[in-house]
């Protein structure tokens, strides 16, 4: 069971959190101008890396805040935790 360092509450057990999948998915700003393919890509397609993965977590049984985590999918080591809108390692960030 992971231990996740909630940016608002500090380290807590994984059972307090819910997982939100890949982070930094950008919702097309003008859906009508988005092709079916691009919309399907936004809806369904996610990376599945071996190694570093930016993902969203929610402290569902705590402060209920969503935030970003960079986790290694092999070692499960958590390399970074940063708030929505914040800057992650390697410059990953949420859309402005």
């Amino acid at each position, binding site marked *: *069971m992971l*231990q996740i360092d909630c940016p608002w509450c500090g380290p807590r*057990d994984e059972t307090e959190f819910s997982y939100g999948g890949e982070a930094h998915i950008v919702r097309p700003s003008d859906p009508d101008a988005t092709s079916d393919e691009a919309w399907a890509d936004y*809806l369904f397609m996610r990376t599945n890396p071996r190694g570093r993965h930016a993902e969203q977590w929610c402290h569902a049984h705590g402060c209920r805040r969503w935030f970003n985590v960079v986790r290694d999918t092999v070692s499960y080591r958590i390399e970074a935790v940063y708030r929505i809108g914040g800057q992650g390692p390697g410059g990953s960030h*949420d859309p402005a």
Partner: protein
Amino acid sequence: MTQPRRLPQGGRIDRSRELAFSFNGRPLQGYAGDTLAAALLANDVRLVARSFKYHRPRGIVGAGAEEPNALLQLGGGGHTLPHQRATQVELYAGLEAVSVNGWPSLEFDLMAINSRLAGLLPAGFYYKTFMWPQRFWGRYEHQIRRAAGLGRAPMEADPDRYDKTHVHCDVLIAGGGPAGLAAALAAGRSGARVILADEQAEFGGGLLGSREQLDGRPATDWVKAAVAELRGLPEVRMLPRSTVFGYYDHNLLTIAERVTDHLPPGISAGPRQRLWRVRAGRVVIAAGAIERPLVFGNNDRPGVMQASAVSTYLNRYAVAPGRAAAVFTNNDSAYRSALDLLDAGVEVAAVVDVRLRVDGELPARVRAAGIAVHSGYALVDVQGGKRVEGARLMALDSDGRGFSSAYPVGLRCDLIAMSGGWSPAVHLHSQSGGKPRFDETLAAFVPGTSCQAEVSVGAARGCFDLSGCLQEGFEAGAAAARAQGFEARPGAPMPAAVIIAQAPMMPMWRVPSWRGVKGPKQFVDFQNDTSAADIALAAREGYRSVEHVKRYTALGFGTDQGKLGNINGMAILAETLGQDIPSTGTTTFRPPYTPVSIGTLVGRTVGDLFDPLRKTAIHEWHVEHGAEFENVGQWKRPWYYPRQGESLDQAVYRECLAARRTVGVMDASTLGKIDVRGPDAAEFLNRVYTNGWTKLGVGRCRYGLMLGEDGMVMDDGVTARLADDHYYMTTTTGGAAHVMGWLERWLQTEWPDLKVYLTSVTDQWATVAVVGPQSRGVLAALCQDIDFAAEAFPFMAFREGTVAGVAARVFRISFSGELSYEINVPADYGRHVWEAVMAAGAAFDITPYGTESMHVLRAEKGFIIVGQDTDGSVTPDDLGMSWILAKNKDYLGRRSLLRPDSVRTDRKQMVGLKTLQPGFVLPEGAQLVDDPDAAKPVPMLGHVTSSYHSPCLGRSIALALIRNGRQRHGDVVYAPLSDGRIVRAEICDPVFYDPEGARQNV
């Protein structure tokens, strides 16, 4: 004579406390301090089990967690425990143990015929024989399970209590032998929070069964002093009888503490076991090492034991497991056992050592004591059936692959102490993600690079001298504490052991078979009856990966996870394939280290505590008035209120007609409720609902449909505008938590610029729905400050006022199609207001109704229930609800409604169904087809989503999703049922009752 094999003196047993116990019904005596295995051996019980596959007689091999044979069923009734290792069961008065294998009895086992049929039961015999033809497997399996004897699960509920404890610590030390105790002293003295867990009842590990000296005194004196010092340190927690069995992510470890298992059942002294979940800053693994067996002919006969186990029984329990022993070894450590045997007065027939040159210090002492040492020899066979009666040895050739003598020589003995070298207990290291590496000198896997904050010390790292163990443990404990921010503090130095140099061991994975394939079986995995020949056969049949060979031969698949056999088996595979061990692979160890009772994992989460139960504020009234309940998520909701002798159908008939003709009342408190507030609240609703919210006036309500981003219907409900910046949203009962999370996520992650605050208020409000033509009269009688006239309080409006003296929000909305009001009051007043409604409604014969009638009333109106009539693949248009899709704004899911699949014209659409036989109610879920006689596979049109008998229509009604259904009103479709009947039904509009909606607008 009782306890014939008990030595006259010595041991750590309490001879003043004799304990009576039984084995297979035979009364026996032991002493306090014995394990069950020690007590059995003291009584000269050799045969304790029959093997898994061949039903060969088996005896005790080890003295600890690695024991593969002595797996016994303890106790009876709901308290019984199957498959317990006798070597780890503490003896208590009245203990009843029975063998789990052997039919009809252990001594006379008919299944031992399998042993004669061994040629028919080769490796992979399950796959080869019993899996084909597959339809017979069910018949075989029953017989095989009985033959295999895996113990009996109790039929009664477990009467015992189990606990869980969650803790954090700075340093967790797994194992309380010399290295673990030293680590605990160093870490504990620094002030760090330390947990020291050991699977045995006493701390000291291997020292308890040895005659080692420290600083010139018995090592157990030092153990006693160390334990006393540790008990005095306030931040050190000592957990005896506690197995660290799992190592998980981020340094979470689990410990099974056997709190009262060592006491007779019925003594109430706390929970039976306790599961510790420990989040440790640092972990020191001091789990020791396991002595490997040697693989030779008939090496499974009762009386063939680990040399270290023989020493433990002699030194710790004062039990001599035999009268005349042979020692068979490939290393120096077994010579200690020879000396232990000799000093205990047991005859040592010989030491047989596969090494050609044997010149270490321990062998020299053995020779000096007058014991014959046969170097360059190996045991090739064991004589005897239910107990060892002798052994045969042969001289090995120079490379150990064959023999230099033609015939074996006999040796008289009834006990064989074997040692094939030592395997560090790398289990926890492996579980933590570490990859053990093969050490050629030790011929063993040792811990590799750490992936988590853990370090192995002492024998668990491959260090086998006592001084080294103490030093390593002490340094690791201090380092772990320092890493956690605690500086070392002075204390007594570690004591010194007498250092005896040990000569290198010689790997001997398998003694050559002296009669080739006709030779006796050489067992590798005792618990699973896997022999060296089985592994060689697997290799010949093309298996190369150790993981495949394990599955094919069952090597390591017993409850012991191959603690004794895995390394030997892997090495034999490597030899057969002509490659080295590291390239053959290692095995990955998984939790648990030793088996854990299900009750321990479950703890108190059973029965009523399995899942939270939610009850509304009015729940007790429903109970008092005879309601039957149904579970809706975690909620208990009144299902129907049967009067004397009424069936479900009769009660629903009465309840529905009351709501249609006079007035009914329903507890709607379970609906999800979300308080939406902030200057951007209207914009927020615009984005999450398909329809527009900007123009909704204060005091008005609106129905809303929520979609996922994929355009599929996710939830629905009515939202009221309380003020310009304040809305009160309702959701489905089952969807409340999901919708709350969904809305929060969009606000936090995508729209942080919106000033909107969400609060779940589901539990804060009780909701009483007053439904029917007379509802206005009931409300008017209860509330003076709201004008209930139709024009003053129109449909889809909301008013604040005082109902039965309580401040209330009253919504004029309808889920039944009737005139109706939903009274929302603070939950604490829920029952008061409900009772006031019942009193005021008495004049109209007000009728409480439950969820079943609610379903019928809404289905008559064609109102959907999200999750029943939809399944995550249904768009608003599929439901005929395109009218609720705004054209002039974006909302979640809108773009997906334009995807090619969403605009297909032949999608399944919501329709009504009327069976041609009006009394027949279709089962929900029934599939619908155009032609029941069509060739298979019959094309499916869709299925029935809701189906009821409608009291006010006097016939059955159903809702269904049918391909292109809206264009097919009037068509007849067929529902082939599972009982063979085929029911005809006509497609119709889904609104069966009052299609103009006149009744709710009065």
